[in-house]
Structure formats: structure tokens, C-alpha cells
């Protein structure tokens, strides 16, 4: 007996039992039958044919008059059958796309991998979590021979694959900056030129670039329209905004960027972030800066990486584990 004949027999049994005493058991078996037929790709119109045949075999005399009605039902179900098969094939395509994106996301992680610099005076932590599979946030550390630690954090306005593609370009332009030390404003100015020339005008990129001088413990920074960072003053226990102003990358190729500086003492903390942190949305709207600072304050005594992880956990919880934007938080804590 072929598979179809088996299904046929099975269906007939269920039908026969149910017509006898309308038992729930038969209905349960029908449910199981339905799952099995979907699994074996038996289409809706075929089910009707199975029903019709079974009915005919069971009570040939009585059912004569209703039999032709099944032809109408069969015809009507045909459309459902087609939609169902299309759904199946689209699902396969979707699965393929999904695994393709997974591969791309892994490649992106490799491509963007950055090593957290190891310097005596700084404890550095970073966390970056994409909202979808691919991230539009970018961060990168560079350490030069004189001991300065540079950090870049960028955010492509937009999410997903287009943002990720755009970010790869940023990464390559950063890599191809000429050797040697660069002042933050110089880095932004040269990236701005690259972006202006190469990126679709509807794509916007914000970037914060900072350089920590480990000799004079001063943090030099410039911003291209990026989310301002925070500075935690250990002595006064107060937070202040790391003020910086500048146009987004790629808007005007002649943009000049101002550079700011901040003296850092032992215990002070610099926090840099993407707008996925500050624009963390809950049911009630964006979180308040004070709320965010509250979370940071709660953990400020911990190690840098711990602060980053804990703040992320809090905000993730606050948003019901549904990130609406890529989330990146970088923490530099002077420990010596």
C-alpha cells in the first residue's frame, strides 16, 4: 500500500468512528491527521478528495445527493492549495535568505573585530549588540607607540544590511589613514571627505573620535554629530556631558571639526555610546537622561566591562528584550 492509500484508510477509519458516535477521540485523531498531512505536503484540495472518497465508500446509498457538492468545494479549495504551496516555497526562500544573512553577520563580526588596548592606567570595557542580525554601529580602538589610546565610535543612521555595508566602508577608510598619530579632528575631516564622495546622500553617519593621552592624562575628542558621551568626575561624584559639536559625516566635504579636551584624574570615567543607548525606548517613550545616568551610577564602582554589561542588561530589560536600535557602549576608566 502506498503512502497515500495509508492516509486514505486512516482517514476513513477516523470518519467511520466519528459518524458512529461523535467521539472526541476521533476529533483528536483528526487533528493529528491534519498535522501529518501538512508534514507530507498533502494539499488542501487533496484532503477534500480523500473525504469525498471515504464518504462514498462508507455510505454509498445515503450520500448520493451531497456528493456533487464536493466538486464545488474542491474547486474552491484549489486556490487555497495554490496559496499554501506558494507559502511553502516562499518559506524555503526565506530560510535561505536567513542563513545567508547569518553568514554575512558573522563576516561582519570578523571584519569589525577590534582589540581592547591593554594600558596600565586605563580599564576599558565595550559592548556592542545589533538590533537585528547586522549592526550599523561601529567602534574601534587604536593604540600607538607613544601609548595614546584612540577610540572611534560611529553610528550609521538606519539599520540592517544597508547600514552594515556602509559601515564596512568606514572601517576600510579608517584602516587606510596614513600611519602615525592623528588628532581626532583630522581623522573626522579625512573620513568626512571619503564619506562625502562615496556614500549615498540619504545615508548619514555620526562619529565620535577620541584620543586618550596616557602621559598627560588628557582626553582629546571631536564629534561629527554623534551622541554626546558622559564624563564621570570621581571626586565630585557628578556626571557631565562630554560636549562636542560638529556636522554629520558626508554632508559637506569642507566641514571643519573642532577639537575639545578634558583632563582625566584617577577614578574618572569616560562613557561613549551610540543613540541605541540614549534613545532606548520603552512603552512610555524615550528614557530620560537622568534614568540612564542612574543606571550607570549604580554600577560605576565596578570594572569597566562589568559596567557596560550591567547597563546593557538593565536597558535590555527595560525594553522587554526588544532592541529597537543597535546598542554600543564604551567605557574608559582611569585606574592609575
Amino acid at each position, binding site marked *: 500500500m502506498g503512502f497515500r492509500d495509508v492516509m486514505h484508510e486512516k482517514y476513513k477509519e477516523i470518519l467511520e468512528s466519528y459518524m458512529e458516535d461523535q467521539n472526541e477521540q476521533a476529533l483528536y485523531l483528526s487533528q493529528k491527521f491534519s498535522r501529518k498531512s501538512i508534514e507530507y505536503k498533502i494539499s488542501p484540495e487533496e484532503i477534500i478528495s480523500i473525504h469525498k472518497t471515504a464518504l462514498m465508500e462508507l455510505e454509498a446509498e445515503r450520500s448520493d445527493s451531497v456528493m456533487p457538492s464536493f466538486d464545488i468545494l474542491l474547486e474552491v479549495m484549489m*486556490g487555497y492549495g495554490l*496559496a499554501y504551496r*506558494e507559502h511553502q516555497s516562499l518559506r524555503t526562500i526565506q530560510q535561505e535568505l536567513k542563513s545567508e544573512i547569518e553568514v554575512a553577520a558573522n563576516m561582519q563580526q570578523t571584519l569589525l573585530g577590534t582589540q581592547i588596548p591593554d594600558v596600565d592606567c586605563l580599564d576599558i570595557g565595550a559592548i556592542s549588540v545589533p538590533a537585528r542580525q547586522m549592526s550599523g554601529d561601529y567602534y574601534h580602538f587604536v593604540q600607538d607607540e607613544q601609548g595614546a589610546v584612540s577610540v572611534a565610535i560611529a553610528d550609521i543612521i538606519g539599520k540592517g544590511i544597508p547600514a552594515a555595508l556602509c559601515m564596512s566602508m568606514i572601517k576600510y577608510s579608517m584602516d587606510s589613514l596614513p600611519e602615525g598619530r592623528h588628532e581626532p579632528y583630522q581623522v573626522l575631516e579625512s573620513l568626512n571627505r571619503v564619506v562625502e564622495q562615496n556614500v549615498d546622500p540619504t545615508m548619514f553617519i555620526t562619529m565620535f573620535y577620541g584620543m586618550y593621552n596616557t602621559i598627560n592624562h588628557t582626553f582629546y575628542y571631536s564629534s561629527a554629530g554623534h551622541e554626546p558621551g558622559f564624563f564621570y568626575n570621581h571626586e565630585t561624584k557628578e556626571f557631565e556631558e562630554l560636549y562636542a559639536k560638529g556636522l554629520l559625516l558626508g554632508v559637506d566635504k569642507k566641514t571643519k571639526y573642532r577639537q575639545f579636551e578634558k583632563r582625566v584624574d584617577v577614578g574618572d570615567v569616560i562613557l561613549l555610546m551610540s543613540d541605541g543607548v540614549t534613545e532606548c525606548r520603552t512603552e512610555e517613550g524615550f528614557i530620560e537622561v537622568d534614568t540612564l545616568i542612574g543606571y550607570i551610577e549604580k554600577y560605576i564602582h565596578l570594572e569597566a566591562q562589568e559596567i557596560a554589561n550591567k547597563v546593557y542588561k538593565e536597558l535590555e530589560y527595560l525594553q522587554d528584550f526588544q532592541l529597537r536600535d543597535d546598542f554600543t557602549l564604551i567605557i574608559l576608566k582611569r585606574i592609575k
Partner: protein
Amino acid sequence: MDSCVKIINEWDIVAARQLGRNVAKDLGFGTVDQARITTAISELARNIYLYAGQGQVCIEKTEAVGKTGLIIISEDQGPGINDLRKVMEDGFSTSGGLGAGLPGVKRLVDEFTIESNPGEGTLIKAIKWLR
């Protein structure tokens, strides 16, 4: 036996279906396959009626090594189809991706070929083999 139906108005679609059903029944197709064949014919004939204005649908018995089947040949000298690849994609048809249209026809039958040149017309052959 006249095995072709000229498609000029909407009622000719019904005539084409009837012809398809008769041939399918004679060849011994079961009720589900009969319904599949007539649905395929409907879709092809409706496309002729809607997009080419007129044309014809022929239904014949066809044979290959060890099997017998039914072939539907839909032919018109209408405007033709520009981007076949797009048209054969799931979810493209104007009905909004309910699985009907040409990709649906392709799924209903065992073999499907389409030739179309803009300005010259469209020729579609669809075969359903007896199981």
C-alpha cells in the same frame, strides 16, 4: 475532435475548462488532478483574455516513454511578456501573491515551458502526466 478553443470573451474560458475536463476524464485523471488541470487552463485562458485580447487554448493527449499525459497549449499574438523571470517569481502576480498566476500553473502541472517575445506573443505548454 476539435481540441482547441478560441479565447475571445470571458465565456470562452469556461469552454476551455470544459474541454480540458473532458479530455482529462477520458484519459483517466482523478478528480483532484482534473481540478488542477482545469485551474491551470483557467489561469492561462484568463491571461489571454486579459492581456492578449485573443488567442487559443488547445488540449491534447501526449505520450512519452512509458507515460501518458495531457498537454495544454496556450497561444496568442498579443503584446508578449517583457520580463519572464520576474513573472515566474512567486508573489509577483497582480493578484497579490496568492499563489495563482503563472507560478501557480507551473506548480499544478509536471512540465511547464513558456516562450514570449515582446510584440510577438506568448506560447505556453504545460503537461500533466497520469500517475
